[in-house]
């Protein structure tokens, strides 16, 4: 019941006109960038960081969270009408959704995606409301050794779960950690890897890395692949009111998608992609007419769309309660907390309960706004898809480089940006997942801090990590994440 009281206080914060305005701005912007291919929530929040630095943190986070939710709604529209997923969480939606649109059932696909997103987002937010205080209670007992072990677990799961192979995930992760090492060491004030450049003493800004990997790298990659350059927009046909038959075929996939998506987001198991894959294949197996799959089955849209929204709610659990990001966007959100001098974790619920609960309450409100924005008003949004790709990417790069330059007003940052852009291109080209790199960049320095703090408390005795039971258990889990896939592969062949 404590959670309910806190939630009511949160609504008091979120229901002020000012914060409703920020939530509306967030969900609107989120829907727009979700619909636009080539620009996602991680990149957008990174670009907004400098602009929002002087904003009230509660308002900023209400906007950011609305943006993250909104991107998941908007991206389904792109998947269905353009067959190019707006975000990685909507890859599976594109399969059946685009086929439905080609058959003139695009409106039904959009409706099941939007309503499914609303149901999953709302159930996910309810689960977040009641789960967060439980995790907080547990996390209050964590010391540096436990936090370090938890971060190692997050590192291994995101590396193992995302991308084409474990090796690629780990390389991406360690590249991110390596970039995070640049700059002045927090504990001793020693300069590391600054290579004699004063500009590098402050480290490589997260905005530069996010823009390099997501905007420059992505633009180079898309431009270099002719098959990605031309996509056909299918006009919305049919009625947005779903038929009785469509409701009947949708409601179970929505619920199953929700309960697949939320735990995958909440456990440090790698964001929104995997639950959408699982949901798609579950629905294919359970469908009354599996032969419909591959011909535009509504279940194949309803399930994955619910799964990705529930996963976003799930991702917020470890982020808010433990300070543990499990997706690229969550990592950028963690950087946003750091910008305000806040450290997400159990203490945040005590010291900044207005912010946390205001944020959670605003998610309920944002979901309602998003349902309205994405169902009756979907026709307006579709016009965004008519922006020609050359102009869209031209605009993205102008705004991205502007954001990076205005960080410090230095051309030096642009040089770093282009180096990282080439890295981002190579990673996309050779199928390295980008999320582990961003997570390594943000979480690496925190992990190092906990590691050294744990060792200084134990006076240099490395066994602390295995003699503390929670820490030992987490490290065993992390090891399993690395070993189990290997074992599977050996058995298979």
């Amino acid at each position, binding site marked *: 019941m404590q959670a309910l009281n806190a939630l009511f206080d949160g609504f008091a914060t979120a229901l002020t006109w000012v914060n409703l305005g920020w939530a509306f701005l967030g969900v609107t912007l989120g829907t727009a960038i979700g619909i636009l291919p080539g620009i996602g929530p991680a990149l957008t929040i990174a670009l907004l960081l400098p602009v929002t630095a002087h904003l009230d943190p509660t308002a900023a986070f209400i906007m950011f969270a609305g943006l993250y939710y909104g991107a998941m709604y908007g991206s389904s529209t792109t998947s269905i009408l353009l067959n190019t997923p707006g975000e990685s969480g909507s890859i599976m939606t594109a399969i059946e959704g685009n086929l439905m649109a080609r058959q003139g059932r695009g409106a039904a696909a959009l409706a099941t995606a939007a309503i499914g997103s609303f149901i999953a987002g709302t159930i996910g937010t309810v689960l977040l409301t009641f789960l967060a205080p439980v995790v907080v209670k547990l996390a209050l007992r964590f010391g540096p050794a436990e936090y370090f072990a938890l971060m190692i677990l997050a590192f291994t799961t995101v590396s193992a779960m995302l991308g084409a192979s474990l090796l690629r995930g*780990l390389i991406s992760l360690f590249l991110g950690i390596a970039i995070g090492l640049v700059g002045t060491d927090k504990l001793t004030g*020693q300069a590391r890897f600054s290579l004699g450049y004063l500009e590098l003493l402050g480290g490589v800004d997260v905005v530069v890395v996010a823009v390099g990997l997501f905007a420059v790298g992505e633009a180079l990659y898309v431009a270099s692949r002719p098959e990605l350059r031309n996509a056909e927009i299918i006009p919305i046909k049919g009625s947005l009111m779903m038929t009785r038959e469509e409701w009947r075929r949708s409601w179970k996939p929505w619920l199953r998608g929700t309960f697949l998506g939320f735990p995958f987001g909440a456990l440090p198991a790698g964001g929104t992609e995997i639950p959408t894959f699982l949901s798609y294949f579950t629905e294919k197996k359970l469908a009354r007419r599996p032969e419909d799959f591959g011909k535009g089955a509504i279940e194949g849209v309803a399930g994955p769309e619910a799964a990705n929204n529930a996963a976003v709610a799930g991702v917020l659990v470890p982020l808010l309660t433990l300070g543990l990001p499990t997706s690229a966007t969550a990592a950028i959100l963690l950087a946003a907390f750091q910008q305000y001098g806040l450290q997400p974790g159990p203490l945040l619920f005590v010291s900044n309960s207005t912010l946390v609960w205001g944020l959670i309450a605003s998610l309920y409100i944002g979901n309602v706004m998003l349902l309205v924005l994405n169902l009756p008003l979907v026709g307006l949004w579709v016009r965004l898809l008519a922006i020609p790709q050359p102009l869209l990417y*031209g605009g993205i790069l102008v705004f991205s480089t502007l954001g990076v330059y205005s960080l410090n007003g230095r051309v030096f940052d642009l040089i770093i940006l282009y180096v990282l852009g080439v890295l981002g291109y190579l990673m996309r080209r*050779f*199928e390295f997942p980008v999320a582990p790199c961003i997570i390594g960049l943000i979480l690496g320095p925190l992990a190092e801090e906990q590691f050294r703090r744990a060792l200084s408390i134990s006076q240099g005795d490395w066994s602390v990590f295995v003699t503390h039971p929670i820490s030992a258990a987490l490290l065993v889990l992390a090891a399993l994440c690395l070993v189990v896939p290997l074992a599977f592969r050996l058995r298979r062949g």
Partner: protein
Amino acid sequence: MDRNRVGAAAEALLGLAVAALGAFIAVETSTITVSPVYAKVGPQAIPYIVAGALILLGLLFAGAALRGTAPPDAAGRTPTDWFPLVAISVGLVAQMLLLEPAGFVIAAAVLFFCVAFGFGSRRYVRDAAIAVVLAVVVYIGFTRGLNLQLPAGVLAGVL
């Protein structure tokens, strides 16, 4: 099949580059001066671990690529179109060089035009017009509206 062999060679090179980065980090780490107070777990411990991991992972990746056991390279199925890469790179470098001497408006307009060109647009007049309008609007919006400092360059007296 040739394409696959080229892809494998590229992946092997990439793996070696990762390993080389690890070696570079190890060398750089050894030059960090450490006060004896922190000798046990100082600022060098984690960089050494990261360096070792990158060397190991890079070599494993290169080895897997050469043995052909790496997962199939889906991206390599269609040939890379190099021309857009060059066009966009030219735009990015031009923007970097022009930004402070010529000013934000000119640099951003050149970047926009090059990117649109790289993405295959051949409507030069339309693209150039949009590029200039966008750059001017962004410049005025950000410098007047958000109080951001952007170089005015040669247009300092005009805008």
